[in-house]
């Protein structure tokens, strides 16, 4: 399985990508929503995108909205991974098309739990 990690922080990209690789993912990274759209355009389509909210150039909510507007990307699951912790923000992200929401700080176990709920743990998906 393949995951796109979208976050403007290199440190956070490394943490998230490292956790996903341990779970069996191949990972690609982007530093903002615009870069992420470029990655998607180049293909292949990842199974999962983890998306930060506050990023320069293009924020995560705009990215999610643009991805959802493109039928070619419909098969990709999107999970917001962000410090935006208010209920209203979670509702906004889910309404825009995100499938799951993980608030920073998070543990690797919490990430694994969310992926299991989505049926996106490589071991689970391959079973």
């Amino acid at each position: 399985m393949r995951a796109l990690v979208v976050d403007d922080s290199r440190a956070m990209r490394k943490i998230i990508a490292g956790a996903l690789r341990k779970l069996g993912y191949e990972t690609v990274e982007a530093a903002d929503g615009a870069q992420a759209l470029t990655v998607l355009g180049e293909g292949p389509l990842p199974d999962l995108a983890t998306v930060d909210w506050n990023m320069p150039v293009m924020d995560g909510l705009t990215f999610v909205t643009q991805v959802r507007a493109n039928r070619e990307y419909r098969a990709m699951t999107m999970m917001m991974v962000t410090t935006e912790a208010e209920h209203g923000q979670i509702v906004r992200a889910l309404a825009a098309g995100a499938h799951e929401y993980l608030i920073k700080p998070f543990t690797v176990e919490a990430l694994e739990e969310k992926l299991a709920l989505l049926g996106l743990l490589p071991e689970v998906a391959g079973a």
Partner: protein
Amino acid sequence: MTPSTETVPLEPHSVEDEALSQIVDAMWSSYFGHVEPLLPAFEPHDVEGPVLCASVGISGARPGLVSVVVERSGAAALAAALLQEDEVLADDDIHDSLGEIANIVGGNVKALVPDAGALGLPGISTSQPLPSSAARQAARLDANWQGHWLTFVVWLAAPAHAPAHERTHTPTTTRSED
């Protein structure tokens, strides 16, 4: 007026020292659980020597600023621990890591502020930036990690319905090492 670093709660259920401490604790256990714990100080302890400060702004009805100040050597050690790297890190990586720490704390603080707007992107400086004149110190946490002092500070403007003496405040002066 003498600048004050005294922490005064703005209103019940708002951002106070205990809430800030819980947010920092959660971050520490998530990303620094493999290293020594952060030890809270019992009294305020200003970070001395050359410092780095990461801060994020909060907009909305009560605009504010959340910052973390640490010695430069402490910032390098924090980044190495966050990234689990043994090698000497570039300044970009150190700034990025400290910025993400401020971002995580700031985002969770924002969730406690009624009618908060947007969270800004992290900024890095060599001194603590001054918040707006309307902001006052709402919470502060001084702590030590591996011999390095860190200070987390939350500045927030008083709510519009607060008494006048709570809405005017002279912020702490900053100490620059430049």
